[in-house]
């Protein structure tokens, strides 16, 4: 297995291209889901009008090469590396440079401050990116890039449930979050749901769940059934596109689970907005 493609230059170039493309092109799986929702919507309803505007927005953004959303996000990068590959220690060393160039060249919005608490001056170039290296089973290396909007991340949460809360508690945590926060997260949503691991890692499960294409199969039949039932409950809330009523409130619930401590039932909900911007690139 060659590792020629696993160096700082290649990663930075892929990050640059992923930002430029995903800022302006609606993810095809998400677009299909919106098209299907529009066909199912009551003609002349407010929901149908909003869904039509989401599709029109995607057309304008692609044709004019302008951002789908004015919040062009913070840049989240995850490099998944299979067990047979060696990763140089400087693998992310050129990512911030790529982010700064992509945001300037693409005329994207600079949306980061230097320090959350002590220095809220704009960093001026949308850096730093938030990078993670993930060692996985199997071969090859895949780079994931997500431009995460502030509104949908703010509408997300981690809840540490007691194990006795069980599946019903997990469902309630998701429904509470949707009821309270969906209007801020720009529905129709993709809901990333992480269950398990530790306080910090459960949020990562939820974030990774957003990367799975809408319509792609769940991790297991059990997970698929849970996702489908929960999606129906979410849509029964009637919040709807742009939270202006009707359906759908969400086009998918994506679940990732993991082992955890006997005392724990960690749950994370990460909202993906109607301008979900991510790319997954096979590097090796």
């Amino acid at each position, binding site marked *: 297995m060659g590792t020629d493609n696993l160096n700082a230059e290649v990663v930075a170039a892929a990050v640059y291209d992923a930002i430029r493309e995903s800022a302006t092109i609606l993810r095809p799986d998400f677009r299909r889901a919106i098209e299907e929702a529009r066909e199912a919507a009551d003609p002349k309803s407010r929901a149908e009008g909003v869904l039509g505007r989401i599709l029109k927005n995607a057309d304008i953004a692609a044709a004019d090469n302008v951002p789908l959303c004015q919040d062009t996000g913070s840049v989240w990068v995850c490099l998944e590396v299979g067990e047979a590959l060696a990763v140089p220690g400087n693998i992310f060393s050129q990512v911030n440079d790529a982010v700064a160039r992509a945001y300037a060249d693409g005329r994207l919005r600079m949306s980061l401050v230097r320090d959350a608490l002590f220095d809220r001056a704009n960093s001026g170039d949308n850096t730093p990116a938030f990078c993670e290296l993930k060692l996985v089973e199997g071969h090859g290396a895949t780079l994931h890039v997500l431009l995460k909007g502030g509104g949908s991340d703010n509408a997300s949460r981690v809840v540490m449930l007691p194990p006795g809360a069980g599946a019903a508690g997990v469902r309630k945590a998701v429904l509470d979050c949707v009821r309270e926060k969906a209007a801020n997260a720009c529905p129709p949503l993709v809901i990333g749901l992480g269950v398990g691991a530790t306080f910090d890692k459960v949020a990562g499960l939820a974030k990774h769940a957003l990367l799975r294409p809408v319509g792609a199969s769940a991790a297991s039949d059990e997970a698929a059934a849970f996702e489908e039932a929960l999606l129906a409950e979410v849509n029964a809330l009637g919040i709807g596109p*742009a939270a202006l009523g009707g359906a759908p409130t969400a086009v998918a619930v994506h679940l990732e689970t993991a082992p955890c401590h006997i005392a724990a039932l960690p749950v994370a909900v990460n909202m993906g907005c109607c301008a979900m911007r991510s790319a997954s690139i096979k590097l090796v």
Partner: protein
Amino acid sequence: MAKTVSLTLPLTREAIAALEAGDEVLLSGPVYTMRDAGHERALQCLEDTGELPFGLAGATLFYAGPTPAAAGRPLGSVGPTTASRMDFATPQLFEAGIVAAIGKGKRSPAVVETCRETGSIYLCTIGGVAALLAKAVTESELVGWEDLGTEALRKLTLKDFPTYVAVDTKGQDLYRQIEQAAQ
């Protein structure tokens, strides 16, 4: 029954008194962008001088931080940010003369009550369609707070910009009506 109306900015209290939660309103004329950092400064100015900054009395605010000019338009993309983050300042700004604000998402009970008391309204528009909304903006002019970058105060001129009445002057709240209807 919800209606669709076209209104010219600046909005008069008489014109907005006729609007009801759920109405679609196409706006034409000037609005002023203000987000989190701008609200802190506006509130400070109000405390220091007793007046809104930049002569904003009578104006409509747009909770938005646009992307730079692109595609021959004054802004590449522009859309609403979450309005509840401005709840800490909105009652005072409305009492000081702001007539309306445009954003997305639910407001606090205090903001809803202030709309009723002052005869102001909260309008929402669609999040995530900022390329489409930018086509309804014909001019953009920097007014102040340039150091805030995208959060600077800008005067945008709108042309048939689509919004919905989320909280009307009677305190009727579209988001809460939709929530209750589904229960």
